[in-house]
């Protein structure tokens, strides 16, 4: 309720977190990895040379994995461990599960201390339980005697009948993912029970559950990440020649509801924005929707703020006063100072001094003033609460300003997405028909809409950024608002053109002469807007560092650094603007 602890001065996060977007040491990986077995140390040196080549490339730093891809990778990892260690695939899978699916960790541990690993994981190389010569064996769970062909055991040899095995497996599988670490039921035995036994003994339902746990474990327990090596063919190299390329990869599920895809992400890829095949775009780091160029900290603060009650409280604080009798908050939106609380309270009081109305009248100044309030105010009695109310009001107004713009860009983007879809599915074909232009020649329209959708997204997040940009950083604020204003007005022109001006051609029955002009205009606006937004994104991603020198001098009391001097470093727009017209597009 106290507006003083409102957090709009907490912009320090913005300066700290720029290294999320550090693109200098980018190591990109694309496509699927063809792993190679020889990861000798010499290859690392090799890699460093290669990295240089990749820095400037615009490549995807992630791969979307469908269910079969996940399975394929898992199988590949199992095969790798199984061949290198000369153990069965079932055992390899158990080992990998134990070591969070890191092939290299399995290898390291195994070659350092095979016996130790076998013991802790429960991979026995020979049975510990010796069968007697008796014809019959007693099941260790139901204690019934069975002939040998009716009992089964894990590598340890402890005999249990099939019914008991089934009961045991079904109980554990239905108990959760712990079943992936299944051991022999004998309490003194640590022998692992692998998928082969599950497949033999579990019901179809349970088998499916087990497989799902296994797949989930592969994606989720892999969190720590692992070093993958990719063989890269480069077009400028002979076809039998390729680079071995190392990247640090991690896997996460796509957070979209109902989406079963996972994303394999290569660290250091410059941006965290990821686009799943289900068309959901999200930030790899925080799994919120994509929010480049704004950092994750700002986004999470903003989202929390939007859903928090705090703003409601601020509103109540700013616009209402509690009834002096029943204490319910009362909003006064118009009228005189004579208030009557709603039933059952019905208390009549003065809005200004909150005293009973029975003490008021002509002598206290009438309905629109209150002498008691004025004199008390002069004595300083109301200062504290009034000041608080004033602060809350200001902070609320500021928040509302940014929130409205954030939200309207959000809905504008949704609308643009729908329009884009409409264009692709309905209008484009018709347009191609009436304007006698092949659809391939109409790509500029789709490109324009794609640009609009992307820009709306960026613009939306710049409002969250703006909200948290500290008030006292005048130079930065001014620079930011300038860039944002430019980008926004460019986008408005583009959006207007794509939305309204296109309409007339959709209504045409025959080819229109102006269509070519329209093409030039829309394509031009698309590219100009793209430029504006690239500038904006770049500037925000380096924390508006270009104005730092100006910020220093503005501290000395000069609060107006000339904006015209800031557009240096090749932005190409250094002139022709006045500091007053920043908000052109709003």
């Amino acid at each position, binding site marked *: 309720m106290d507006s003083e602890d409102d957090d709009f001065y907490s912009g320090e996060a913005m300066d700290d977190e720029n290294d999320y977007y550090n693109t200098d040491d980018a190591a990109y990986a694309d496509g699927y990895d063809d792993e190679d077995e020889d990861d000798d140390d010499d290859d690392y040196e090799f890699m460093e040379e290669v990295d240089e080549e990749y820095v400037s490339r615009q490549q995807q730093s992630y791969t979307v994995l469908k269910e079969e891809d996940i399975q394929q990778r898992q199988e590949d990892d199992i095969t790798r461990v199984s061949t290198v260690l000369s153990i069965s695939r079932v055992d390899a899978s158990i080992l990998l599960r134990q070591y969070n699916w890191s092939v290299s960790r399995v290898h390291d541990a195994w070659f350092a201390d095979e016996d130790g690993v076998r013991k802790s994981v429960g991979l026995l190389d020979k049975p510990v339980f010796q069968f007697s010569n008796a014809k019959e064996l007693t099941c*260790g*769970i*139901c*204690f*019934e005697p069975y002939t040998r062909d009716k009992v089964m055991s894990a590598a340890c040899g*402890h005999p*249990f009948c099939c*019914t*008991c095995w089934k*009961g*045991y497996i*079904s*109980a554990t599988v239905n108990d959760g993912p712990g079943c992936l670490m299944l051991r022999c*039921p*004998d*309490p003194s035995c640590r022998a692992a029970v692998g998928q082969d036994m599950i497949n033999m003994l579990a019901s179809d339902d349970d088998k499916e559950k087990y497989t799902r746990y296994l797949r989930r474990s592969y994606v989720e327990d892999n969190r720590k990440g692992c070093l993958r090596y990719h063989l890269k063919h480069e077009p400028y190299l002979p076809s039998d020649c390729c680079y071995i390329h190392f990247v640090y990869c991690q896997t996460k599920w796509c957070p979209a509801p109902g989406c079963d895809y996972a994303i394999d992400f290569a660290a250091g890829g410059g941006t965290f924005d990821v686009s799943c095949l289900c068309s959901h775009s999200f930030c790899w780091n925080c799994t919120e929707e994509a929010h480049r160029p704004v950092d994750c900290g700002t986004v999470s603060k903003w989202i929390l703020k939007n859903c928090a009650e705090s703003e409601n409280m601020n509103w109540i604080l700013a616009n209402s006063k509690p009834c002096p009798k029943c204490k319910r908050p009362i909003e006064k939106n118009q009228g005189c100072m004579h208030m009557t609380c709603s039933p059952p309270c019905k208390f009549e009081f003065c809005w200004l001094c909150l005293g009973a109305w029975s003490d008021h009248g002509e002598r206290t100044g009438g309905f629109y003033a209150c002498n008691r309030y004025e004199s008390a105010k002069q004595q300083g009695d109301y200062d504290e609460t009034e000041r608080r109310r004033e602060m809350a009001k200001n902070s609320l107004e500021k928040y509302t300003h940014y929130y409205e713009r954030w939200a309207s860009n959000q809905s504008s983007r949704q609308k643009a997405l729908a329009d884009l879809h409409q264009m692709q599915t309905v209008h484009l074909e018709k347009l191609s028909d009436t304007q006698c232009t092949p659809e391939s020649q109409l790509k500029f329209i789709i490109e324009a809409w794609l640009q609009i959708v992307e820009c709306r997204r960026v613009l939306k997040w710049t409002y969250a950024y703006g909200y948290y940009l500290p008030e006292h950083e005048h130079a930065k604020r001014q620079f930011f608002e300038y860039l944002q204003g430019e980008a926004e007005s460019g986008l408005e022109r583009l959006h207007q053109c794509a939305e309204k001006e296109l309409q007339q051609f959709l209504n045409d029955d025959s080819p229109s002469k102006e269509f070519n002009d329209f093409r030039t205009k829309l394509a031009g606006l698309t590219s100009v807007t793209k430029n504006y937004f690239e500038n904006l994104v770049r500037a925000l991603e380096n924390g508006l560092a270009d104005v730092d020198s100006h910020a220093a001098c503005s501290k000395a009391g000069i609060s107006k650094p000339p904006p015209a001097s800031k557009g240096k470093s090749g932005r190409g727009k250094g002139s022709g603007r006045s500091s007053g017209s920043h908000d052109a597009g709003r």
Partner: protein
Amino acid sequence: MTSSSAPSRKALSKIACNRLQKELVEWQVNPPAGFKHKVTDNLQRWIIEVNGAPGTLYANETYQLQVDFPEHYPMEAPQVIFLPPAPLHPHIYSNGHICLDILYDSWSPAMTVSSVCISILSMLSSSTVKQRPADNDRYVKNCRNGRSPKETRWWFHDDKV
């Protein structure tokens, strides 16, 4: 009696019945030292008398264990508690609940009443001090209304006692 007439007390399955009958026969032939099964006609609830082992803090003391078997015993663990008065022990609460991993997470269907009894006796015998667990009052308060110890999320941290 803290008779936790477990909320979902279903009759024993056929497998559970067979297994318990075998356990009972085995118990009669070869009872674990220090324990006495009080004969009743209820196969689903055993009352077992425990005699503190000689030379330990609980020598010459007698307590009663109540063992309730679930429908799918032995795939599910039995519920084992001390009937009042429960022995004073750092892992035994005043309501009779016992903090012992094999009764919960580490239960295995290859364990038996007899092996559980032996574990409990060994837990008693290795105690060096007669006292309640530190959080006894809070825990017992939370367990009113006859909540089963199997609903508790136990955290086994002490493997010495």
